[in-house]
């Protein structure tokens, strides 16, 4: 897994590549924690190049959203492939997260 981070205005865009699963979740969690620790409030997760996500990855997203919410920030997610979208739907994550089709739609009004 690779995570590329780019600042777009006040938003930190995290572009995931590869898998977000048992083995890569700890690294992703560290990256989120680091950004929030540095004061980031608005995080946009772009899953365009993400192959699949498992519950270990969902746990990271949930923990990050909870932490951000407590600190007055928020998390958006965009560009889900069919498998990731299916996982979001089965788990109910598509209703509790702000999910967008594209990065520009997610950035608009963030």
């Amino acid at each position, binding site marked *: 897994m690779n995570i590329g981070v780019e600042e777009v205005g006040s938003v930190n865009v995290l572009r995931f590549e590869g898998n977000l699963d048992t083995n890569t979740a700890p690294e992703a969690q560290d990256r989120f924690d680091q950004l929030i620790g540095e004061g980031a409030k608005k995080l946009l997760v772009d899953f365009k190049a993400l192959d699949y996500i498992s519950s270990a990855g969902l746990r990271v997203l949930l923990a990050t959203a909870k932490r951000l919410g407590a600190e007055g920030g928020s998390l958006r997610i965009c560009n889900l492939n069919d498998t990731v979208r299916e996982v979001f739907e089965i*788990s*109910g994550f598509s209703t509790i997260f702000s999910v967008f089709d594209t990065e520009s739609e997610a950035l608009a009004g963030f």
Partner: protein
Amino acid sequence: MQESFENLKRTTSAKERMESELNIGRDIQMSMLPLVFPAFPHRHEFSVFAALHPAREVGGDFYDFFLIDEDRFCFCVGDVSGKGVPAALFMAVTKTLIKSRASNDFSPASIMTHVNDEVGRHNESCMFVTIFLGILDVTTGQLAYTNAGHNPPYLKREDGALVRLDKRHGPVIGAMEGMVYQEDRIDLTPMDMLLVYTDGVTEAMDPSQGLYEEQQLVELYRSREYSSAEDVVKATVDDVWRFQAEAVQADDVTVLAVEYFGVPEGAKRHVLDLTIKNELGEIARVNESFNVFAEEHEVEASTRRQMNLVFDELLNNVISYAYEDDEEHEIDIRIELLSDRLAVTITDDGIPFNPFQGSPPDTSLSIEEREVGGLGIHLVQNVMDEVSYSRRTNENVVILAKHLKAPGID
């Protein structure tokens, strides 16, 4: 007057008690049978159909069938001596023992030997049961079978020839412990049909007390071609009813048919076997190997990703929770790709644990309320079409299947 009234009351209530016991026995008997057909709509190698019509008075027939694993189909037909609740309970015990033993013993002779010992050991009431038990390898067509005092079944070959499987492999089950049962093997070829029945068929009586007899069954099977297992079972039962006419049904009538189709021509079958250690890092190796296999055999990308998810969830579960020691363990993974199904078997030697018995998580809660526990298994159950768990001697076996679109079928 008073005395005869009391007598009448006594005999009436005794009769009612017997009646209700017979009814309870019949309810237990019928509730144990698999009754949904087609039983395996996603398996193209074989089909099975069965009918059991309980008699009013006597009866203790049963049948059962199940897939032991991806390739082995086990079926049996039995007839318990006796009637009412005791016979029904005896049948329930026998049927349960067979199924439990068959989950890790693939030899009909060994299963029968074991079941006979168990049933015979505390058999104060001296009941017994005749059983025909077969295990069909649906990929090769080889049928292994043991007949314990049961009516010999018939095999109707594709060319119409009728073969009587008349070998007996031991006495009735339950009569004497310590018996060693034998088994035989016969190769089925596509479109062969196996018919197993109980003596309620051959001993059905017409109004003048004449018996149906096996010869009439043979003639029925010779008389025409049958389009399906269901067709032949229904034709048999109809013929018995026709013969019996207005006479009372004397015994349970049970017929079970298995039709073998074989592995469809041109069907592909690719197998990938992997063995990993109980370390989380190994999951990535499984997914990498599977992705190479999937690419080579043109598995759709979305299916491949779903399988990656499934491996991550289930292997994480096993590696994290199945072992109470710090030893190294092996986990076996078998992946079978057929034209229209992708099947996975995961075997570990961890503590007994059925991952599918928990309740699904509440997916309607808000971010603050949500927990992720239990979600992994919920995902697996949703993306796969079949999931099952069984405990074999000292192993957990999880079998999963995903239905694929067969080429040319929408």
